[in-house]
């Protein structure tokens, strides 16, 4: 079992719902302070978005943020450098598109993640059928390969996915890309289907915009991923204390 999964299982065992905020690496020069603020406010893990030119699963907010980060010269090496300045106690999880790792070289990329203190990776456009090489590279570097289950995923496929999935299983709450959403989505149903085939922790993400949505998601799942709302705040100029404040609202709502 990867160290990430061990840690996340402990959190679940303790009865605590996991809160996983998402940040776009390099969006601002001080993006590291946003990560620290989130941890201070009670995040259990942090997703580090590595910007990609063609973020197929992302809505306008994260697209915009990725563009800005790329324009500022962000890349895997610069992120790794930035992260060396970070000391937080919670696990870091990379989230990006496969071409970033593919182009960097999967072995080299997994090593880089590990060296940067990252213990998990979410690659939404890399399905199990194509993931072999990457999964092995990650395994060699104790990077958990986190897979997604969508509302449209048939049960048979859920089983295949959960078998391969490490760390936690990402239950996408809706058939949509990242971004704001007003309804609660299908997260609870997706979590049920994950649980029907595995006891891996199941976290709900995609469209979790308000603390109350986060509360509902945390009742159904073992954790919640909160992304666009934070990224939007940063795009709008939020400071680290602002981020701390927002994350705390989510923390309160799920506790």
């Amino acid at each position, binding site marked *: 079992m990867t160290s990430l999964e061990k840690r996340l299982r402990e959190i679940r065992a303790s009865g605590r719902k996991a809160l996983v905020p998402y940040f776009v690496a390099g969006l601002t020069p001080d993006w590291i302070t946003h990560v620290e603020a989130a941890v201070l406010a009670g995040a259990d893990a942090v997703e580090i978005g590595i910007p990609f030119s063609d973020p197929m699963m992302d809505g306008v907010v994260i697209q915009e943020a990725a563009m800005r980060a790329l324009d500022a010269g962000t890349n*895997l090496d610069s992120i790794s450098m930035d992260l060396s300045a970070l000391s937080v106690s919670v696990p870091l999880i990379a989230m990006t598109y496969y071409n970033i*790792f593919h*182009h960097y070289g999967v072995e080299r990329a997994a090593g880089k993640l590990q060296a940067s203190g990252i213990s998990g990776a979410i690659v939404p456009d890399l399905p199990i059928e194509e993931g072999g090489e990457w999964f092995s590279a990650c395994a060699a570097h104790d990077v958990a390969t986190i897979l997604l289950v969508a509302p449209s995923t048939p049960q048979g496929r859920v089983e295949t996915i959960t078998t391969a999935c490490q760390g936690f299983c990402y239950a996408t709450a809706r058939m949509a890309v990242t971004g704001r959403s007003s309804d609660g989505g299908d997260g609870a149903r997706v979590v049920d289907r994950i649980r029907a085939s595995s006891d891996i922790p199941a976290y709900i993400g995609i469209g979790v915009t308000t603390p109350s949505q986060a509360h509902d998601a945390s009742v159904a799942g073992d954790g919640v991923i909160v992304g666009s709302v934070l990224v939007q705040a940063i795009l709008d100029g939020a400071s680290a204390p602002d981020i701390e404040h927002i994350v705390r609202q989510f923390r309160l709502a799920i506790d």
Partner: protein
Amino acid sequence: MSTEREFMAAPGTLGHFGAYGGRFVPEALMPACLELETAFIDAWADPTFTERYRTVLREFAGRPTPVTPLRRLSAQLGIEIFAKREDLAHTGSHKINNVIGQTLLTKRMGKRRVIAETGAGQHGVATATACAQMGLECTVFMGEIDTERQALNVFRMELLGATVVPVTSGSRTLKDAVNEAMREWVTCVEDTHYCLGSVMGPHPFPWMVREMQSIIGHEAFQQMIDLGASTPDLVVACVGGGSNAAGVFAGFANTSARLVGVEAAGGSAVGKGSPGVLHGMRSLLMQDEFGQIEEAYSISAGLDYPGIGPEHAYLADIGRAEYFAIADEEVIGALEVLSLTEGIIPALETAHAVAWILKEAGREIPLGSKVLLNLSGRGDKDVAQVREMLRGQQ
């Protein structure tokens, strides 16, 4: 060239062409891709479906398109050139072949709506056309910059009842339109088919689109025989995503013909690209040192794509097809030559293939060779642009 091996056969269930292809999509789209694969395999094996497909192409789209011997140009160059006239297909290019196949499939799958991406608008117009003909709802994603550059094509799609959505993300051109169509598709896979416009994207698209375009090559193969010309020495096509090239190559992959794809220098995925993953496929892509996709730039919007279909990447790898690049500067002259000597104004995309032939006659193309040019589209859409450019030169 040995023909013991079968080239351009069906890829396996993973959609691999050697090291390329595959199905790199979010889990949410995976069932739709699998459903599509099953539906396509089923339909393509069903004579009722293929007969309907061929009937619509014949009655509505004007197939078969002829093969025209380019006698005057041939005499000038010392080679024998034949042109497969996709410019005469309804809406002015080969794009309609694929679109009619996919819209028929959409109906068969019980879906009521189609989405598509478009660059210059050729695939968008073709899709809007087929949807109008079949009574399907249609939404076309088009980079905002392209909607401005190609305002008339936007209007054309609207006349045909389609909704055109300007895409404001990324570089606001074709590759972003693909991203946006994928994003949209996630939200509506239930009742909506994504009608991809070239031999790209996740499996089964590269294979399915090639199959739906292979009618070009199969017709041409027989037509060359009927013209008494038999197998050409070379088959030449321009390559954006690669659908017209794949379509014509398919008719000659297992002959002795040399297959040549001509890319735009500014969108040359084989020439300047490296393996990568984008838009659901592993293929050759133009990208920077960190794997960020580069914007293509070409004088012709239809070749303005930083990637290439995975099967082409494979054919290049194994040497069954060769790919060359033509610079923008060479394109207008080629368009002029074909217009003047043969009375056919080609699309700027097609003019790349023409330019390569003009340049290589007597070099890569030995004198006396028989060359089949896939004349993928007509130039009417480009005439205003060419006029501006020629004026600019004066």
